[in-house]
């Protein structure tokens, strides 16, 4: 601050953590959000007997610039961020997307009147990542 007072950030020491926060963790950070639907909303309850309610969840939020191990993101994610910031802003920033899912069991009536119990893979998001 003594050498070149103009350059120094005009922040007093107690704001320093605030100042750094903007770099480390964005306000609305990428995370898993709850969402519940019932098949009757889609008018499918005539042929989907169970479950009555289904929570697929979803991922939303900004990805911090230095994602590192926090999201299990590969190094490519940081490279993509650098490209976006330094080289070509038409390249999209890393996105907040599901990283892991859990299955869902569904009981349905088929067009021929037979009944089927099926377990589907990847129907409920359980973890998010930045990619």
């Amino acid at each position, binding site marked *: 601050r003594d050498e070149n007072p103009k350059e120094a950030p005009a922040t007093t020491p107690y704001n320093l953590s605030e100042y750094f926060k903007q770099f480390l963790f964005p306000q609305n950070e990428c995370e898993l959000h709850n969402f519940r639907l019932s098949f009757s909303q889609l008018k499918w309850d005539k042929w989907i007997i169970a479950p009555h309610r289904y929570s697929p969840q979803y991922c939303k939020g900004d990805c911090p610039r230095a994602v590192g191990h926090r999201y299990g993101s590969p190094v490519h994610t940081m490279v993509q961020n650098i490209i976006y910031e330094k080289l070509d802003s038409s390249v999209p920033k890393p996105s907040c997307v599901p990283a892991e899912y859990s299955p869902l069991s569904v009981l349905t009536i088929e067009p021929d009147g037979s009944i089927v119990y099926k377990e589907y*893979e990847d129907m409920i998001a359980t973890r998010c990542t930045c990619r």
Partner: protein
Amino acid sequence: PHSRGRTVSARTSGLLVAPEDATSELNPLLWLPKGARHGYALLPPLLKVLSDRGQQNWESEVPRLQPDSRALRYMKRLYKMSATKEGIPKDNKSHLYNTVRLFTPCSECKHCHRDLMKGDVHSVDLLFNLDRVTALEHLLKSVLLYSFDTSVPVSSSMTCMCHLFAKEHDSSGQVCPSVSHSVAFSLHFEVRKRKWVEIDVTSFLQPLIAAHRRNVHMAVNVTCLVGDPQQNTDLANPVTMALVPPSLLLYLNDTSEQAYHRWNSLRHRRKSPGRLRPRTSPLVDPTGDKGNENSQGQRASRRR
């Protein structure tokens, strides 16, 4: 995912046609390759809602035959045993199946005729249409599911004998019944307590399902004796009155991408999140077959 340099038309791969191209094909079933059309009840409606932005209710367009209420009750009970309230499959080791299909016999074949001489044989001619079973669904177990019309007063324990006959259709379409299989089951139960009787017909059906037979035509003769077989028994006429034509239950292992594979999810949990799971590893035979290539496959996957 297609890299920018290489564009693959959805049309050539037979996968989903872009919605604007598909206005002429109202039925989303036509968008999926033939093999997949019957595979996943959920996919076509999801695609339909995405394509027409959800205005129409696709399901109202597709007429659905209403299932038998007893069969529906049984499947709801099976669902409660297999999944939590939120629909998450229970991690049950003995629960190898990821698909269970229940078929009720075609209505025109439900006539029951009794062999009046013996006065007690309950014989029924059944035709099951197995069109919904896909090539990727491997049979684990099949069961004839008898339920009782509990309004008919029936006495206590009894012993039943059941004979199954596959009815092959020869080239001219004539039915030539051949005793392909007879299975005997003896049961002692209070009908009032038990609403269902399951007869395992896996060995009987295995060859037909493996041959991707679309229609299974069989005759089932049931004879029930009241009381304990060790002591005196007499013919149980009333119970054969109470027997409702059986449904056919198939426990299957769906080997497709969309289906949930327990053994695969355990392996996947150890991997880093989000990486595509290579499905090339040889399937552990769902019927627990001890073939040596499987044990090699298992050793290799365990080593991995």
